[in-house]
């Protein structure tokens, strides 16, 4: 008898390795960019050539590496982001436990949190400047303000993740409320908490930069604002690129921690969402 061997068809695009397809997309993007500038479709003030942008990237990179004024500006922004994120984690986690664990928190506090969360939080920036001045405090406050809510929601949702069986089991073991929280609900909710942290990590960057745009100071956002006002578009591009490298690093740090801490959760380790 003949063997029933046949080949399942996989389209060419699906067989290409990821690195190749990513490089391909990048090349097409740069090619189109180069084309539109060299054909004069867009004014060089609006869109610099890829070459100019690359030159500026190197310049900014050298400046950063030599510890010049750009590094100092970046350091200010990094500090704002780190303080803001730490503050958001502390407040977000505390509020999240209050809202997720107590009936009072869920009934009396959650509605207000939802109400504030739906507001455009950037609009509070002038208030923070008025309250805390032009220093890094107002930027830290805005960054933390934006990042807190996803962490609250993630923590509260995580605490609700425990199923009825697990609750009943802990009850039959005579566990106290604190034991149930620490040994069961919190670990079980870690995947949701990390989702909140990742959204928060993105928000905290946006908050710090917006704070600098609106409240001045000496951070990286200020460099971007000044470059833009001088119509130095290549500089704006390269500053944004370095800034997003930092944002990516922060996000990667959260993901790395998640893999370490929530090693038992498939979606957390498999990286389907990162």
């Amino acid at each position: 008898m003949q063997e029933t061997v046949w080949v399942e068809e996989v389209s060419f695009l699906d067989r290409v390795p990821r690195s190749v397809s990513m490089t391909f997309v990048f090349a097409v993007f740069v090619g189109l960019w180069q084309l539109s500038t060299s054909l004069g479709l867009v004014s060089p003030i609006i869109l610099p050539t890829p070459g100019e942008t690359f030159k500026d990237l190197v310049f900014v990179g050298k400046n950063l590496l030599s510890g010049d004024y750009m590094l100092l500006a970046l350091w200010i922004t990094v500090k704002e982001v780190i303080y803001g994120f730490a503050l958001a984690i502390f407040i977000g986690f505390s509020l999240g436990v209050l809202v997720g664990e107590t009936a009072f928190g869920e009934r009396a506090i959650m509605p207000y949190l939802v109400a504030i969360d739906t507001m455009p939080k950037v609009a509070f920036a002038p208030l923070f400047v008025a309250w805390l001045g032009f220093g890094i405090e107002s930027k830290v406050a805005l960054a933390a303000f934006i990042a807190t809510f996803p962490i609250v929601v993630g923590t509260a949702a995580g605490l609700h993740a425990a199923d009825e069986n697990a609750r009943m089991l802990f009850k039959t073991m005579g566990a106290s409320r604190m034991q149930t929280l620490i040994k069961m609900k919190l670990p079980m909710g870690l995947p949701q908490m990390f989702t909140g942290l990742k959204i928060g990590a993105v928000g905290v960057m946006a908050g710090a930069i917006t704070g600098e745009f609106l409240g001045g100071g000496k951070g990286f956002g200020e460099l971007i604002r000044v470059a833009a006002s001088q119509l130095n578009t290549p500089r704006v591009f390269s500053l944004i690129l370095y800034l997003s490298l930092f944002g990516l690093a922060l996000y990667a740090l959260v993901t790395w921690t998640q893999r370490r801490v929530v090693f038992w959760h498939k979606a957390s380790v498999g990286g389907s969402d990162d």
Partner: protein
Amino acid sequence: MPLSAAAADSSAVNSAPVYELTNVGKTYARNLVIALEGVSVTLHRGSFSSVIGSSGCGKSTLLKIMAGLIPPSTGRVVLQDQPVTGPRRDIGMMFQQATLFPWRTTVENIVLPIEIRDGRAAAVKAKDRAHELLDVVGLKGFEDVYPNELSGGMAQRAAICRMLITKPAVLLLDEPFSALDELSRDMMNMELQRICAEQHATAFLVTHSIAEAVILSDHIYVMKPRPGRLAEVVTVDLPRPRTLDMITTPKFGSLVDYIRGLLDKGEAL
């Protein structure tokens, strides 16, 4: 058929009652639903009893009362001469889901009840006993494996160990193997019988399966719904140890038929 719950049981173990429920009732006053009415249950040391009935007959309510999870509205609930007024360490319980926590290894899951009641140091000491229990249920070598790597049947074996670690006086089993496929389920039932015999355990099983109740039990509490109450207590005098072959015997068949008759009558009411 013998009817008395207090009938001398066939397991020939001494007949001291471990757990006694007398005339227990449960009313949910808010919506005036009578979940349970006048239920009396006596569990003798080393005996295996089951409760069977259609959904809504109050068997889960009964089990929750026996576990000390909810208070009864009327009646007496006495375990080892002490009234049950809350969860107790001499009550072991097992559910349909194994509910092992994925961030703990198998052995860490098993000593969890000790950790909750006596703290971490006691839990570390209890690991030796956990290893012995894993050996008893045939999970030797899986001590340090995380539950994700266990099959459904293996997870329930680990759950049995977790239930036994505190040396409870009574085991309350809430459809423990109903989430498993039928082949594993039969096998686990036989394992359960062996483990209960080895540990001289007093067990009380909630089940939907008549065959499962008959093959495992000395006494079967048949319940009927609205309001949940006992229809009859059926004594199973099949010899022990029971084997799966007994399912085909005429005696087994007539017991199953008899209980099905009782349940149908309950439905008709």
